[in-house]
């Protein structure tokens, strides 16, 4: 029915061929589409407005990277912001308390409270090995208590026996007492569905809460909810201070904008999602997947990953170009260290390079590990901008300051400077030469501190360069080889030239 946001953004930006910073007008055009996509996904209007404003701030003026199209970049910004709002931290249930932990379920009629209570009981019994009791406070809907009893039996958990003519508050009291006496770990209280504007029923819910002091108050909400999500979430939150949200019917085809609305309005995490009719169909919430769903882009994840990859690829190319000109300063050095870390650190790289497996041991023996790279990074980060671009400035007192700032010693700072100088010298020497001769020059020695040097004959292009440059750029292990940096797609981002001095140990050439 709707064109996907991706297509629309592509249209918006198709006229925009050139690179540079994202202009305000381009961003606004794109955000109009984002706004519509969010509204079509049932994200509540006030939430859409504030979200779009946030994204606009991030997007305007941000550099459009060479290998990323503007639409991809906007999608990445939107997707990242959405994922962040939806929750970047896992949100486990707070049940590690002095038993019984009390969980109160609340929500509108038909949102799925009773079904969710049953699923939750099963989950806590099987996954967390808790002794669970279910109690229904729903005296309104016909056979609601019967329904919970059946679900409890299926989940093989305790169910509070029904008694006649009790108010929800009375049942709650009795349930709490029974759970305490019978040694249950968790007590789940199911309540009647209620419309938020029914003051009487909301007061009843407050009373139950005051009586039982629940550790979790879960708002159960239907993923298909429209704009009313804001009113519902606000009203329940004001009445009983919810601690988390359970989103049901996520196995349907609704885009589930209500998730964003309720998360934003209440500040409460979405703790669980219902994904089917079976009793074990209750899962943890995945913000990244939800973001893609709201934006209606099945392939958003892949696209975003690719965009991120391209960004790194681009950085690698930039570095390689600089090196080809013989330019190499501390910032470049830092950038290399970081790329190295992103690729899984030394161990990761060694593991990927054929024939280098056994070198890992030697490296370890020489005391080179990833913590060293992190220390080197800290040292560079403790330098000022000026110092990073002209290392000549680094006199004794500056070095002392840097050592203190990075929590290292002056000796270590000296070592980093020395490594850098060796690398820079090499870069200068190599600048402008072809890949092959650079390789040769490098192999001839000067792998600043790499113990044992590289095994001879590292092929320039790396055999791993499969499928459009799967490991493109890794050839750079042997030196800054701009020629080896095809703008390949997929795979690892290019590791630009010359693995930085690696070693902290004096460059022993011992084998």
């Amino acid at each position, binding site marked *: *029915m709707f064109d996907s946001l991706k297509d629309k953004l592509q249209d918006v930006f198709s006229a925009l061929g050139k690179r540079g910073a994202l202009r305000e007008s381009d961003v606004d055009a794109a955000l109009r589409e984002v706004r519509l996509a969010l509204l079509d996904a049932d994200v509540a209007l006030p939430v859409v407005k504030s979200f779009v404003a946030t994204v606009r701030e991030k997007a305007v003026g941000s550099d459009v990277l060479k290998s990323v199209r503007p639409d991809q970049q906007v999608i990445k910004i939107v997707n990242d912001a959405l994922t962040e709002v939806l929750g970047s931290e896992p949100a486990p249930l707070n049940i590690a308390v002095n038993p019984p932990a009390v969980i109160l379920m609340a929500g*509108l009629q038909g949102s799925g409270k009773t079904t969710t209570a049953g699923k939750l009981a099963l989950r806590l019994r099987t996954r967390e090995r808790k002794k669970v009791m279910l109690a229904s406070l729903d005296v309104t809907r016909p*056979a609601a208590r019967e329904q919970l009893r059946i679900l409890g039996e299926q989940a093989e958990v305790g169910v509070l026996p029904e008694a006649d003519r009790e108010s929800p508050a009375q049942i709650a009291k009795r349930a709490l007492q029974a759970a305490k006496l019978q040694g249950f770990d968790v007590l789940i209280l199911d309540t009647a569905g209620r419309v*938020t504007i029914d003051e009487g029923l909301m007061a009843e819910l407050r009373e139950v809460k005051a009586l039982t002091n629940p550790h979790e108050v879960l708002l159960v909400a239907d993923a*298909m*909810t429209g704009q009313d999500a804001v009113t519902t979430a606000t009203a329940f939150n004001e009445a009983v201070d919810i601690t988390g949200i359970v989103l049901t019917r996520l*196995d349907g*085809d*609704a885009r589930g904008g209500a998730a964003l609305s309720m998360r934003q309005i209440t500040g409460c995490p979405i703790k669980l999602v219902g994904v089917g009719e079976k009793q074990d169909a209750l899962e943890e919430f995945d913000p990244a997947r939800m973001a893609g769903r709201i934006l209606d882009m099945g392939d958003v994840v892949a696209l975003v990953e690719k965009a991120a990859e391209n960004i790194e690829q681009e950085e690698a190319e930039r570095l390689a170009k600089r090196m080809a000109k013989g330019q190499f300063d501390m910032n470049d050095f830092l950038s290399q260290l970081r790329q190295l870390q992103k690729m899984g650190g030394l161990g990761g790289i060694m593991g990927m390079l054929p024939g280098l497996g056994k070198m890992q041991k030697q490296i370890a023996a020489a005391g080179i590990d990833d913590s060293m790279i992190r220390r080197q990074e800290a040292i560079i980060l403790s330098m000022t901008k000026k110092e990073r671009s002209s290392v000549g400035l680094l006199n004794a007192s500056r070095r002392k300051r840097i050592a203190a700032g990075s929590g290292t010693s002056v000796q270590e700072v000296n070592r980093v400077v020395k490594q850098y100088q060796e690398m820079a010298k090499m870069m200068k020497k190599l600048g402008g030469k072809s890949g092959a001769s650079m390789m040769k020059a490098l192999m001839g020695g000067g792998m600043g501190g790499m113990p044992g040097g590289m095994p001879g004959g590292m092929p320039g292009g790396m055999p791993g360069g499969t499928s459009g440059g799967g490991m493109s750029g890794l050839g750079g292990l042997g030196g800054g080889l701009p020629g080896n940096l095809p703008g390949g797609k997929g795979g690892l981002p290019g590791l630009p030239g010359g693995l930085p001095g690696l070693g902290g140990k004096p460059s022993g050439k011992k084998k």
Partner: protein
Amino acid sequence: MSWLKKLTSGLSKTSAKVTASLSSLLGRSAIDAASIEEVEDALIAADLGTRVAARLAEGVRRHKFDGEVTAPALAAALADGITEILDPVAMPLEIDPAKRPHVVLLVGVNGSGKTTTAGKLAQQWRQQGKSVMLAAGDTFRAAAIEQLLVWGERTGTEVVAGDQGGDAAALAYQAMERASAQGTDVLIIDTAGRLQNRSELMDELAKIVRVIRKLDDSAPHDSVIVLDGTVGQNAISQVSAFKEVADVSGLIVTKLDGSAKGGVVITLADTFGLPVHAVGVGEGADDLQPFEARDFANALAGVPDTGA
């Protein structure tokens, strides 16, 4: 309490919102683009969806106001636009006396209020002196059968029920046989809630319809989708899928006694043109009311109630 009062009290929050957003436009003789956007936003916040909201707002912009734009005039213009869309679809359920039974099939997603609506419909027709039979076709959800049995007792209606986990189509067939044998006026068949994208569950529903038609090829005479009033734009996907599988002939919108605006009804009317038979405004047996286009439009747009 009249249905309109209930609906209006439920919609009061919306009306307040719409009126508030419109108040900035008052006292001007023409409406500018920014103001129209406010009207549009207010409609979107009532679940009308971006497309229909834009069209209605545009209608207000083109409206020729006599002199200055006043709050009532603006609300009235908006209500007129909404009524135009809703008027053709406001049609109560009519029982064909020639059919015995007249079969009403209730379908919809989980938790939309099918079982409750079945009970309320039974109540309504019992009060009109008709003989009614209920069929507990939700054999999946725990205690759904018991829930319908309670409604049967409340309304003095016979309930045909099997076991949980049984074959819903077989039960529908059995109910059809019994209702025709007894010459019952209306047979209401409740079904299990199912999400419209679950094809195996939709196939089950298709089977129920096939089986009913074996006994009466004109049945079900009304295939009604029950929609939750709080639903957003997914309602479009729901109606479209159930229409295909169960020949949906009309809709009932429930839970309009809450803060939800049910504005998606307007979008649905605009998209499908299917009759809107009734609205649910509470949990009581009498809380099912005929759908009145003008009243609904007035309540949504915030036109003051001038009726008796």
